[in-house]
């Protein structure tokens, strides 16, 4: 490989060139039956190491590509898995809302909750339906499981609802299936916004934990029978006067993604059945089999509901000096 002093081609150079050229042309002119054995012999000897290196290089490149693909697939799966519970929960909420809409039948508008960043989030809800969609001021806002709040301001295509967590929220409530009435509001104190208070319950009425509290229909805003919460225990009591109970709300505003806004015209309705309340005879049908075959028969309508202001007051009972056994636990919240 020493640099030659004479770079011009000599006869020997030309001869070597011609020999190599002829050999190349001979190789080119060889029949296919001879080309392959020579090429194969070269591949198995001279080219074996370099082909092995090349094969490794290619395999390494392919492995790297596959690794990147596998990583991206894994990341996609992780991402999908991350959102899966949320999607399932949203699916369940939407199905529940669809079921509620079917049970409500008429007089409502659906809306999505537009999340807002800031301290007001959770106290007020911006809804994606407004005047054009039939929303009116003071319209009840409900989720599939119960009360969320009521509309405070209405714009053409959006509205702002006061959630039950808001300090100004009040709803007339009653214990389901009884004539025990009270007012529900957000619990004040350190855990405000997570629990409700049922205030103004007559002292003689004792509610056991787990008792369901629904809207009473009084006040002309919320229809009767929409769930508000369940009793957790007594919070305070003014001896001989009234008790205040702590309620576990059935739905929290932060959980709501889609809501139903009821028309104020339905304030006089009873929606107990729509929210899965205790079934009444009006909700039932009879399957009758007779000579004409099998047919569905609705039972006779129930007697008219006795509204609390018409109901006879229950017999007065002396207030026990101490809670009897089985009384709801006093909560220190």
């Amino acid at each position, binding site marked *: 490989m020493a640099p030659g002093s004479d770079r011009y081609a000599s006869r020997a*150079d030309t001869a070597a060139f011609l020999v190599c050229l002829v050999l190349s042309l001979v190789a080119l002119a060889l029949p296919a039956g001879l080309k392959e054995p020579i090429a194969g012999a070269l591949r198995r000897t001279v080219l074996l190491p370099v082909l092995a290196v090349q094969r490794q290089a290619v395999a390494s490149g392919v492995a790297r590509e596959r690794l990147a693909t596998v990583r991206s697939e894994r990341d996609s799966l992780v991402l999908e898995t991350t959102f899966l519970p949320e999607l399932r929960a949203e699916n369940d909420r939407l199905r529940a809302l669809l079921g509620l809409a079917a049970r409500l039948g008429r007089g409502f508008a659906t809306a999505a909750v537009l999340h807002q960043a800031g301290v007001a989030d959770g106290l007020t809800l911006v809804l994606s339906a407004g005047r054009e969609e039939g929303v009116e001021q003071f319209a009840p806002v409900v989720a599939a499981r119960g009360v969320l709040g009521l509309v405070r301001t209405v714009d053409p295509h959006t509205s702002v609802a006061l959630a039950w967590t808001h300090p100004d929220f009040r709803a007339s409530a009653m214990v389901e299936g009884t004539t025990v009435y009270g007012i529900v509001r957000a619990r004040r104190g350190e855990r405000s916004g997570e629990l409700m208070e049922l205030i103004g319950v007559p002292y003689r009425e004792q509610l056991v934990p787990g008792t369901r509290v629904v809207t009473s229909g009084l006040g002309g805003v919320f229809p009767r029978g929409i769930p508000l919460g369940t009793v957790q225990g007594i919070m305070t009591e003014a001896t001989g006067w009234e008790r205040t109970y702590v309620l576990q709300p059935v739905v929290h505003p932060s959980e709501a993604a889609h809501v139903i806004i009821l028309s104020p015209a339905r304030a006089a309705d009873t929606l107990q059945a729509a929210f899965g309340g205790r079934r009444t005879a009006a909700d039932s049908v009879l399957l009758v089999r007779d000579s004409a075959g099998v047919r569905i028969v609705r039972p006779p309508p129930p007697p008219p509901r006795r509204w609390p202001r018409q109901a006879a007051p229950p017999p007065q009972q002396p207030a026990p000096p101490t809670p009897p056994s089985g009384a709801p636990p006093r909560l220190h919240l």
Partner: protein
Amino acid sequence: MRIAAPQVRVGLVLALLVALHFVVRPRLGDPRFAPDFVLVALLFFATRVRPMAGTIAGFLVGLVTDAVAPTAFGSAAVALTVIGYLSGWLKAVVFADNLLVNALFVLVAAWARDAIGVLVAHQLEGGALGWQLLVLSPLAAASTAAAAVVTLLLFRGWLRQSAT
């Protein structure tokens, strides 16, 4: 580590180019446009030795190249024999130690190698032949020339010393 002998230095660069051809080239995407490091090594070698050595090197490299494309067995041998011989002869006549001239030399040599190989193999004709010679081969030659320039920039001291 100080490497004194110019031949050893050039040999190392050539070995590096051959290694790059088999290790790096498969990862450079479309092989039709990837730089041919073996051709660069052959050209660097042929321009630093007598035409006879360049011719023999070209013939052997061509034969080995043909081994992986046996349907056109001999075409690369013809092409690289010619390129090897002409490189040694041409370098002695007109070559200057200039980066641009070196790049142009590699570009023309790479394209000529393709042209000779394609024409001798007689496997392409018509539009495919034109596409190969006027589009694909110039692109491949350009990438090979770029690889040669990079090599010269990285090892210019070693390669210049050996040429003197």
